[in-house]
């Protein structure tokens, strides 16, 4: 098992990890804080000489924990209240063409937010960070099969919720 090489981790993964945190948290400063926390953990592990089989999956696991504990702190309100930014001007994909479309995307985002954390994380890791199911499993401390099931369940729920909204 290789010893963690902090420099290589920063070089290779800081950017995708930032993207991951940003997608999970949808908030620039939250993503920035959690990115720092993730790499401070990595620095500590590297200083201890920890050995890690899959550095990338390991780093995603650390980032996932950072995002979860950020979410818990936010829920407890011991940080300045940060309005979750549902304004799609921030989405980065460019401002959607119509008000109707903006509303639809806002609903999609809100639905993703309602997912249990593990499903949301699995979905983002697989579809947008392009991790294999083996890596998603390692990052979420579950089996690859469970990771796959989480992604599937996430999509199924989103379908149901969003279909309901359209029909209702």
């Amino acid at each position, binding site marked *: 098992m290789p010893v963690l090489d*902090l420099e290589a981790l*920063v070089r290779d993964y*800081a*950017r*995708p990890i*930032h*993207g991951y945190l*940003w*997608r999970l948290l949808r908030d*620039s400063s939250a*993503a*920035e*804080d959690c*990115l*720092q*926390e993730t*790499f*401070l*953990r*990595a*620095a*500590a592990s*590297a*200083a*201890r000489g920890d050995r890690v089989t899959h550095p990338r999956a390991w780093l995603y696991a650390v980032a996932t924990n950072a995002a979860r*504990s950020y979410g818990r702190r936010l829920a407890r309100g011991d940080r300045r209240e940060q309005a979750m930014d549902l304004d*799609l001007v921030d*989405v*980065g*994909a*460019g401002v*959607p063409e119509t008000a109707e479309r903006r509303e*639809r*995307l806002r609903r*999609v*985002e809100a639905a*993703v937010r309602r997912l249990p954390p593990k499903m949301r994380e699995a979905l*983002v890791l697989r*579809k*947008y960070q*392009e991790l294999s199911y083996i890596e998603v499993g390692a990052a979420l401390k579950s089996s690859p099969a469970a990771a796959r099931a989480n992604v*599937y369940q996430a*999509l199924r729920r*989103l*379908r149901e919720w*969003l*279909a309901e909204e*359209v029909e209702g």
Partner: protein
Amino acid sequence: MSRRESTRPGDRTGWESWLGDRRGAAKPPSLARDLDDVYRVGPGPAEWERARGALSRILGENVPAPLYYARIGRSPVGSLWVAVSEQGLVALEFGRPETEFRRRLEQRLRRPAVRADDPTEEARRQVLDYLNGRRRRFSLPVDLRHLTVFQRRVLEAAQAVPRGQVSTYGQIARRIGRPRAARAVGQALGSNPVPIVIPCHRVLASDGRLGGYSGRGGLRTKAKLLRLEGAMAR
């Protein structure tokens, strides 16, 4: 570095079919496309630059040396966390969950923290001996580099209050030449990173009441420490 992060466009077919989006009419609009519109494009270059800048300020050219911390499981005032840098004690905190303690420590000092018994042994021994009445004064270097000048001066003045005696926020304020800053003195003492070792518990409100104490147990702990030192009747 300016390229926007995105997933490969070719990925789309795969999971559209998984979602069943290719079958039937495209109403309601395809979930795969909606999700892509929200999530495919990640943070913009400006956000990344800011995050990268902040990260490299912490990690720097050379990764900062870690702090070491450990737990004192049992003491007369409950469990405690102790952390040291290469220059001395940087934190002493009344029991809270390890992850919370570590996160706050790392954020406050912008350095990674590693749990280790050896580097913290002397600090743990002295604190425990003190609390058990086996030691009368500390001989531990304290590292206050990360504090403001004002905070440092307040804490140094508090350190000069001898065991068995007490002072007041107003007296400390006068001692550091800021006679009107009693309230700010109280705040600086409240954020003392190394309570017990720097005896902020020996500083009371000017009316002789105990004032405040931010450690666990609040004023009860403050009173306990003062009794231990003989500054208050048992």
